């Protein structure tokens, strides 16, 4: 088990570095764009040169990156172009909001996807299966930002039972925090559940058609035991492996959802960075969002491996 965790970690660290390089390149695809967009289109060449010199943007990209990386490793993500405020503390301040939103969305998505996906597989071809598959198709086609809008229309403006936005830290007022988090978490979680539901249905179907499930039936195990003891754990392994990647894909939704509900998280910081053309802010916040996604992927993937004895204790050679 220690070896398994070690190899995962050994793969994870270079991935993070590579991710930071990709983001750095993505932001600097067009050379010189940082200064121009920060200062506006009608900035004089002198102003641009002064700005680039001030922020070290006139150096080669490789130097800029290693410099940035070196500082980042010491917890310094640079200072905002806009107001000269250090980026890292701002991100730390906003981190709990995003993590809370992500965790709630994750719980909602799985709470829907796991039971319904399994049920659809068990009732394959029956009415329940078609109803659940239809639900997944509909949920999968709803844009999360439209769902957020609809939820606000219904629950905030029409029924007036949940706030349309705002944020109160959890430790200040857990209940208020909860009411403010429900709609954002639902917007993100419901949409994510569609894809996870399909994955669960497919993996569960595969498992239910497997020879070992037939063996369980041949032993005279009742349906409940076949599912709980023999099918579920085996279905969970591919579900987690595939689901981890897909969820990260959908996690980008925090950028929009936090903006809609005026949640002061990292997702909305990404947007601030873009709107102000504030590259240090954008790079830092985008990197942290990516970091969260990659970490979540790694954790979920490791959980899947821990569930699988074939990965946990590989067959010793020479037997």
């Amino acid at each position, binding site marked *: 088990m220690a070896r398994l965790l070690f190899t995962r970690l050994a793969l994870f660290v270079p*991935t993070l570095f*590579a*991710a930071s390089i*990709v*983001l750095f390149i*993505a*932001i*600097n*695809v*067009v050379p010189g*764009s*940082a200064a121009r*967009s920060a200062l506006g289109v009608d900035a004089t060449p002198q102003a641009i040169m002064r700005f680039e010199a001030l922020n070290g943007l006139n150096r080669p990209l490789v130097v800029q990156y290693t410099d940035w990386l070196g500082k980042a490793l010491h917890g310094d993500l640079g200072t905002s172009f806009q107001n000269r405020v250090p980026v890292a503390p701002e991100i730390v301040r906003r981190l709990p909001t995003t993590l809370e939103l992500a965790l709630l969305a994750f719980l909602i998505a799985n709470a829907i996807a796991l039971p319904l996906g399994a049920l659809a597989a068990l009732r*394959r*071809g029956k009415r329940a299966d*078609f109803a659940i598959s239809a639900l997944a*198709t*509909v949920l*999968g*086609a*709803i*844009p999360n*930002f*439209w769902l957020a*809008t*609809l939820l*606000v*229309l219904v629950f905030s*403006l029409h029924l007036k039972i949940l706030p349309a936005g705002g944020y109160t830290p959890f430790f200040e007022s857990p209940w208020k925090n909860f009411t403010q988090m429900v709609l954002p978490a639902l917007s993100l979680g419901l949409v994510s559940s569609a894809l996870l539901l399909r994955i669960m249905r*497919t993996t569960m*179907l595969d498992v239910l058609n497997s020879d070992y499930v037939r063996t369980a039936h041949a032993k005279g195990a009742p349906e409940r035991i076949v599912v709980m003891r023999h099918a579920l754990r085996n279905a969970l392994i591919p579900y987690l492996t595939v689901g981890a*990647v897909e969820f*990260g*894909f*959908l*996690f*980008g*939704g925090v*950028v*929009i959802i936090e*903006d*809609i509900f005026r949640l002061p998280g990292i997702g909305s910081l*990404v*947007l601030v*960075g*873009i*709107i102000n*053309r504030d*590259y240090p802010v*954008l790079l830092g916040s*985008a990197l942290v*969002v*990516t970091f969260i*996604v*990659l970490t979540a*992927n790694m954790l979920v993937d490791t959980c899947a491996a821990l569930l699988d004895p074939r990965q946990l204790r590989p067959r010793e050679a020479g037997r």
Partner: protein
Amino acid sequence: MSAFADYSIRRHGLLTLGGVIVAAVIISAIFAPWVAPYSPYDLDVTLMLEGPSRAHWLGTDEVGRDVLSRTIFAAQISVKVALFAVAVGLIGGTIIGMLAAYCGGPVDTVLMRLMELLFSFPAILLAVVLMASLGTNVLNAMLAIGIIFIPGFARLARASTLSAMQQQYVEAARSIGMSHSRIILRELLPNVVTPLLVEAAVAFAYAVLLESALSFLGLGAQPPDPSWGNMLNTGRGFMAQAPWLSIVPGLALFLCVLGFNLLGDGLRDVLDPHLRD
């Protein structure tokens, strides 16, 4: 007997439904100037935020423009962006994927590791970051979304190429010394096209979604050009007085994505029978 009939009717029914929706979206995009009752740009300040009426079936927006007309014209931008983005992803991904499979070895490893890495990024985040440096306009939105699609297509193209390469006739072509470009174009490409086309339909839906998301954030189509995304963004300011501004474009977007998803799933069922349950 009846179980089979039920199954295929239901499957083909959904495929047909998807096809009809997609056709409707594409037709309204192409023929928008003739289909739409008004110009999407004509203001009428005397008719600001009017609810649905006989003259304006789906109401008017904050400067008195016809919501139905703007929604129809918005399909133009969505289809255009999605088409271009999918083309970028499809071509880029196919080249990278086939190259990786055909060369194998370190080329394969490096290319696919890179694709894997890109794939693990949250899509919207990557698009948003790319838009920041490319500049916010429709053309760059197409490009950014297209780049996001490359890894998905590359993975698929690689897998299909690898399986095609194991076919006997490809081995035969190699052994008789056919040139690399001939093998790739004549023998491999035809085998890779079908799965890629199915993926393209699904990617199309996702491209429409991403374009709307970018426009919603103000990074895609810029006002006054109508896009479902920027219409929804505007609508947020008037949710209490004019809820239709938040409902109509969203519904159009939802139907469009649904149509392409159904089409993609249906095509996958028809073309890839072994994936059927």
